Every structure is written in C-alpha cells, then in structure tokens.
C-alpha cells in the first residue's frame, strides 16, 4: 500500500513542480538533435542470487540523429558471465517521434521504437531482456511530459525472445513473450537558476520498471533511483541503484548498480 501511495505522491508532486527526461534505463519520447552523434558507455554490476559473485555488463552504444524525428542506435553487449569480459552480442534500435505538443517550458511527446538484438550468451533466467541477455526484438511506445523542471515518462512494449544462437535454444518450458511497462520521473535539482552552459546540472530520477510474461503471467516490478550529473551541457554521468520490489519469476541478478558515461558530439560547424 505504501508503494502505491509513494507512486501517487510522485504524480501529485510533479504536477506542481514543473527537466529531466534523459533517464537511466528507459528512453524519452524526445529524440537526439539531427546530425548529432552520441556515445554512451553503460555499465552495470548486479549481485548474483543463485551463485556467488557479481554480474558485470558493459554496453558501449553509438546513437545518431537522422532527422528531427528519427534516431538510430547501435549497441554491443559484453559481460563477465563466462568469467572474463566476453562479447555476447549487439543490438540495433530506432526511435521515431510521431507527436509533439510543445509550449514554453513544457512539452508532451510520443514516440514509437523498435529494437533487434542478437546474443550468444547462455539463457539463465525467465526474465526477457533483449538489452544484453536475449536474442529477440522489442516494439514499444513512449509518452513523455515535461513541465518546467520535472519530466514524466511512460513506456509500454512487447518483447519477444528467440534462440541465443548458435549454442543456446530458448527453453520450451519458458515463456518467450513479455509485456513491459515503465513509469519514470526526473527532476532538475541544481542549479535553481542557470548562469552558463559550464554549470553542472544535477538531476534526481526514479524509475519503475515492470514485466509480465504473456502466458504464465509471471511478473516483476523494479524500482530505480538515480542521480545524474550533466557536465558542460554536453556529457552525462549516471549513478543508479536498481532493486526488485516484486517478483515471482526466476531472475539471476535483479539488484545492482549502474554507472554510465555519455558524451554528445553536437552537429559540427560547417
């Protein structure tokens, strides 16, 4: 009950408070500037619950703004599951912003996205995750509202896992299709008043991430709390903690931390 009150409370506060939609786990409906390139190094360290140790994932990503509404991203997945840092796979992602209603200091935007992933790691959990664990695809919709210093975003997607070729067939006993849903909240905490592009911005973020498998209805809901630093109005550092709030499915490492670095090369001067 307390959890629900907390979520309702966040909704309530945000209606008064007013930017920050560059979330740690989910994408906002806004796109990258056309012609700009972005490099992101995502790292996660999650504690194994079925064995000793930690599961480390390293995902370098390159994104490019094709035009004002369309962006593209390529990611590669490395992890230490085989006891050394091993290239397990990669993914291609496109996002299309199809609706924008902007006003002074606010916007509401909607986007559709798709991801296609290949992965050759072993399949070791019921959770479906095409970002670094499963081969497969994901199709989704994003809704993002920005009001003054607060951003709210929600995502709904369908994710389907396939075989992790060449060595690992998706287990017949497991459900290979899932519905994902998320709600994210972000707020600019500092500065109160901008003085220059050099000023470091600090954002506080909470994300709730859920998945329900389509047939057996097994579900998990995670909460993520993050602090984000925007440096020089061009790079970004995320530090986040993710914890399972509810789960009745097998997951090998649900709790852990993220440490991400991101740098944007804005369109070069002609």
């Amino acid at each position: 009950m307390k959890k629900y009150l907390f979520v309702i409370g966040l909704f309530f506060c945000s209606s008064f408070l007013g930017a920050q939609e560059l979330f740690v786990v989910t994408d906002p409906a806004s796109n990258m500037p056309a012609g700009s390139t972005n490099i992101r190094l995502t790292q996660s360290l999650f504690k194994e619950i079925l064995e000793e140790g930690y599961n480390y994932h390293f995902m370098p990503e390159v994104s490019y703004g094709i035009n004002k509404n369309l962006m593209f991203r390529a990611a590669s997945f490395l992890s230490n599951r085989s006891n050394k840092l091993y290239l397990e796979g990669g993914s291609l992602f496109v996002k299309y912003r199809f609706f924008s209603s902007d006003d002074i200091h606010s916007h509401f935007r909607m986007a559709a996205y798709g991801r296609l992933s290949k992965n050759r790691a072993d399949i070791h959990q019921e959770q479906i995750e095409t970002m670094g664990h499963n081969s497969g695809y994901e199709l989704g919709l994003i809704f993002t509202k920005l009001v003054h210093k607060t951003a709210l975003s929600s995502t709904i997607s369908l994710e389907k896992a396939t075989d992790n070729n060449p060595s690992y067939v998706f287990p017949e006993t497991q459900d290979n299709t899932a519905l994902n849903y998320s709600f994210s909240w972000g707020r600019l905490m500092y500065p109160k008043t901008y003085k220059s592009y050099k000023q470091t911005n600090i954002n506080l973020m909470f994300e709730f991430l859920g998945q329900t498998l389509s047939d057996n209805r097994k579900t998990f809901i995670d909460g993520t709390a993050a602090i984000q630093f925007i440096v020089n109005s061009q790079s970004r550092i995320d530090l986040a903690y993710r914890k399972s709030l509810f789960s009745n499915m097998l997951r090998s490492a649900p709790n852990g931390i993220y440490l991400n670095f991101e740098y944007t090369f804005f369109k070069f001067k002609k």
Partner: protein
Amino acid sequence: MKSIFFIAIVNVLLTMNASFAQVRKAEILATGLTCSMCSNAIYKQLSSITGVDSVLTDLNTNTFTVFLKPDNKYAPNIFKENIEKAGFFIGSLIVTMPASVVKENATQFIPIGKFSPGEEKELAIKIFDEGYITQKEYKKWSKTLASVETYSSKKSNIFHFKIENK
C-alpha cells in the same frame, strides 16, 4: 497544366525573393525545453549556420539572439528549420531586416493589420505563421485570420508579420 506551371513559376520567384531576405538579427524564443543540454543543442545548431556571426543565449528564458553577417540571403524559415532539427520548436521569432526588403516583397512579407512604415532603414518584425508562434497561439490566429487566404495556405516562404519596433 498552365496553372500548375504558373504556380511553379510563382514559387520559384518567391523562393528567389526569400533568398535575398538579408536577416541581420533574429530573436528566438524556443519551446519545449528546460535543460541546459537541450539549450546547448540549439546553440550549437544555430552556430553551425553559415553566415552566423554570434549567438547569445539566455538559459533561463530559452531565448537565443542570432547575429548574422551582412549580405546573407536568409529568410525567417532558416531559424524554424534549425530549431526543429535540434528537436524543438519556435515560440516567438522577431527578425530585424532592411525595411526595403519588407516593402519591396509584399507578396512574401504580408502585414497583419495596418502597416505604415516610417523612414526607418531596418524593421523588427514578429512572424505569426505556423511554427513561428506557440501551437496555442497559432490556433487562435488561424481563427482570427481564417479569411486571409495566404495565411491558411501555410506556404513556407510567405510570412505574416507585425512590426515590433514602432
């Protein structure tokens, strides 16, 4: 067929006029953003336009003042295109340009209401077409100017304006 040919010719002529618009200064209020990284994207985008001398920014109001080199050939649409490339929209645009260009290109620069320019060499004009004001304001103006055929035709090289510096 003839009419299509005629429209094509008129469009070409209008585009030619637009290419000699010579905007000296543009004051842009951008919408849809509140963060410095978003503002920086617009700043870099505007700075990348050939012929831009400098860009001044007010991060708190998301206002960008763009100074252009003389004898450029830009019309107001250059700013709309570039703000939208950065992922945002224009909430207000005031351009400063030679009064002679506004007066001599009456089919391209159409005044809203009474237009009686004095002897000023330059005019600061606020553009009221779609994409140059907020979406809410545009809804209001499209009702007010419903009978103005050039306004509802939404041609990208025709600008409806009011003088700001009178």
